[in-house]
């Protein structure tokens, strides 16, 4: 077995064990309802985390995604309220806009040689600022097309629902995995993450790749914004504050190294599911105060990371010792 897959397997193992523990305590955790919820409730996070995976694989970071989701929601809601455009047209407009926004950040990062952390931080302020300017109120979306979208789901046995957005997230993960592992663009992303300078010497088109990565992240953030607007049927400029940190945490828990160059899109899915599991567990428990909730989330984050490190480390060590 290849050493590259160790972190991924470790994460999967931890997830399964954690789920088993939760199940032992609350048997309802294994209902299709909970599973359906995990997919639906984390759909927007999952989608944006796929984009974040690419960014992090390339050694960058994108702090703007939370704000972009909020902007997307407000944009859609305001457009649907004030113009007669069909939602699909608005979606297309929005995706173009967020993709361009991402591409602009990528271009700034590459051509002005500025660190991604800072560029996307400014992007984060900018996107939320734009959302404020569009509307500070939360704007409901009443278009009947949205009702149609929300009504699309597959009722699993046990009353759990696999919703459109949950399914879309899974689709994005599959597409993301193919893009990352089976295309030249994906390889270039890994190459840039392995070392910009070396990648350039090996002939990787740095500019194109960097712009592409952030454009992809912007596109997926826009898509996540659409999903979020379907999820809440509204646009709200204060929504999804700090989602970028959740996405980063999911990517990292999923076994991708923040230094870039190593990790898997599939790991991110498990990361997202682990985060969802933690939250579900805390809600099922229902006795934690606000502060203990935060502390527990922090501790579990810590436990997962240490466990993962430990697992990878001991396995790697055994392999060396075993020859």
């Amino acid at each position, binding site marked *: 077995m290849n050493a590259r897959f160790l972190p991924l397997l470790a994460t999967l193992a931890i997830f399964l064990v954690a789920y088993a523990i939760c199940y032992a305590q609350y048997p309802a955790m294994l209902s299709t309802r909970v599973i359906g919820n995990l997919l639906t409730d984390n759909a927007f996070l999952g989608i944006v985390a796929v984009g974040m995976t690419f960014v992090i694989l390339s050694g960058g970071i994108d702090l703007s995604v939370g704000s972009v989701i909020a902007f997307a929601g407000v944009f859609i809601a305001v457009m649907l309220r004030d113009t007669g455009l069909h939602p699909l047209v608005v979606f297309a407009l929005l995706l173009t806009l967020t993709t361009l926004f991402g591409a602009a950040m990528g271009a700034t990062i590459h051509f002005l040689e500025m660190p991604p952390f800072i560029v996307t931080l*400014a992007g984060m302020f900018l996107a939320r600022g734009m959302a404020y300017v569009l509307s500070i109120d939360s704007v409901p979306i009443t278009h009947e097309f949205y009702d149609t979208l929300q009504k699309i789901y597959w009722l699993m046995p046990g009353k759990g629902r696999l919703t459109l957005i949950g399914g879309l997230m899974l689709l994005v993960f599959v597409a993301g995995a193919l893009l990352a592992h089976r295309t030249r663009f994906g390889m270039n992303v890994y190459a840039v993450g392995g070392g910009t300078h070396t990648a350039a010497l090996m002939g990787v088109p740095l500019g194109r790749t960097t712009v592409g990565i952030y454009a992809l992240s912007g596109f997926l953030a826009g898509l996540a914004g659409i999903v979020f607007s379907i999820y809440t049927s509204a646009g709200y400029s204060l929504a999804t504050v700090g989602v970028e940190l959740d996405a980063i945490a999911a990517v*990292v828990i999923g076994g991708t*190294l923040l230094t870039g160059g190593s990790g898997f899109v599939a790991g991110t899915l498990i990361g997202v599911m682990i985060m969802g599991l933690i939250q579900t567990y805390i809600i099922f428990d229902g006795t934690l105060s606000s502060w203990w909730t*935060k502390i527990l989330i922090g501790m579990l984050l810590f436990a997962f990371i240490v466990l993962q490190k430990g697992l990878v480390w001991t396995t790697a060590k055994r392999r060396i010792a075993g020859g």
Partner: protein
Amino acid sequence: MSGLGVFFRRIWPQLLTLAVIVGLISVMFPGFFDISIANGRLYGSPIDILNRGAPVALLAIGMTLVIATRGIDLSVGAVMAICGAVSAWGITAGYGLGATLLMALSAGLACGLWNGLLVAVLGIQPIVATLILMVAGRGIAQLITEGAILTFNHEGLIFFGSGSILSVPTPVVIWVLTGALVTLVVRRSALGMLIEAIGVNLRASTLAGVNTRVLLIAVYMASGLCASLAGVIAAADIRGADANNAGLWLELDAILAVVIGGTSLLGGRFSLIASLVGALVIQAVNTGILLSGFPPEFNLIIKAVIILIILVLQSPAMRTLLVFFSRDPRGVAETEKETVTP
């Protein structure tokens, strides 16, 4: 003196930025430079910038050191909340001022130690390692205050927020002194060079015998200590510990200050003074927005645009362009370094 010359060459972009922003504000708001003394304390908008900038300036000191080692500390905001809570709790529980301060500073050191251990011993990447405390820290602070704003009326503690020394507001005195002290320690000893060495190449530094582990931990502890000072000031300022909001998102401002100060997020060469100027730039922008009277929904956009402009102007590529026009060979040196690291 060549030392001073080098120093100014390093920080002139930051100073210039600050001057331009202050200039802009004073054009928009002519009364800007009016400084008087009220209640035995200097009073005026420039003083506000210095005073309100205290938390970010303090955080930026620690953050600069952390970033120089190629790390990052996202937890400083939460640590501020913890230390503010500890000081409020200590003083209301009747411990003396000395004991309370000691507890608050120890809390900051302990948080730094935790971060440092995760980074240096467990080898967790700094963003993630400090993200843990960023999430949990606010919870810990709330645990101490039980979710409420823990108010106090102890004059001694309040002095740290709204007192003054020789009419200079105490927070200003604290951050200036801390900045000077840390600069002195770091530059008069070999710490500065060792920290830079770690930031550029951790492995090579270890092989050269640098005690990288201890140094990394120390750097995070310094950051924790700075955060605790900031936390005490923030709490003393409003005479209460607000576990939810104290230092909220200030870590981002601190990082921004360091970057505006020209220290690379990839570690290595750093300048504390430039970071402090960076912190003042950010606060000047904030204060300027407040004085301008624009509706609040524009705050973020204005801030984002100004910061973007500053960063773009300071970016290496822009410097190349500038050099291209001025034909200053020194600038070329810096550009070439960015593009090629053999």
